[in-house]
């Protein structure tokens, strides 16, 4: 197993494990936002705007993992 194969496996692991946390977090935040909108429909606009910003911030964690995976695949200093 050479460095190239290991880095491909590393990229796959980075994306697969790294997307679990953001997936759970996004699910929780959308559920909470739906709950809030159901309770108070008149605040829906503000809640969904805040939700979008929050979702994008959570999503950033998964994007970091993707960037690490791409670095491993395309700009690996070890290969």
């Amino acid at each position, binding site marked *: 197993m050479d460095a190239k194969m290991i880095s491909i496996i590393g990229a796959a692991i980075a994306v697969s494990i790294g997307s679990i946390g953001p997936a759970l977090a996004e699910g929780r935040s959308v559920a909470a936002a739906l709950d809030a909108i159901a309770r108070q429909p008149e*605040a829906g606009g*503000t809640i969904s*705007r*805040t939700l*979008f*910003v*929050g979702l*994008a*911030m959570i*999503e*950033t964690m998964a*994007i*970091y993992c*993707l*960037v690490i995976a*791409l*670095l491993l695949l*395309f*700009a690996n200093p070890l290969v």
Partner: protein
Amino acid sequence: MTMPASPLVSAVVFRVGPIAVTQPVVTTWVIMVTLTAGAWAATRRVALNPGRRQVVLELLVTGIIDQIEDIVRKDGRPLLPLLGTLFIFLLAANLSGLLPGVAPPTGKLETPAALALTVFLAVHYFGIRARGLKGYLASFARPKLIMLPLNLLSQVTRTFSLMVRLFGNVMSGEFLIGLVLSLAGLLVPIPLMALELLVGIVQAYIFSVLATVFIGAAANQDEAGSDRAGRLAGGPSQV
């Protein structure tokens, strides 16, 4: 199946002496010229009694001012030139990928890096202008002197995360479309492109909002210690 080209290198279009001019630079300059010409043409005949075009323009400008003032909670006009331009440029740059043959310049690392660096410098500029050099430097040691290294570190990490967030989101969409296109035929990537439209708008909005939050936190006397999460989650009218 062919692998899409590496997202970390850009194609060189032409060279000016020793300087290689790459594809994102050309796209950026075309967007800059278009936006500048559009802004010049739109504000050429500004009347007290606005026509249709001027109403749209005023709606855009006052809308951006309102958003800024919602976040910094004081007069948003000094911040408008930087943040408004940032938002409109990001919107144009993120959505330029929808034009055939154009790759969004924000999908390469250099453009987000330059924009994040601009925000980084603007934070210090507005901070020093609002509180004086001494007061601004003292704000790094708040609430306690022991927080100094963490405050300095957070200046670097949030600039870095601003850069990687924009780059990663735009690049991953572009990369995904390229990958799907190489797997399946002509019309399959269209839903993904619609998703990219949404992501581009949301990311432009988020970059501008975070830049506003950072600048507002540096310039506000009383709320210097509050971080962005506290401000974003603080009240219903903040974001």
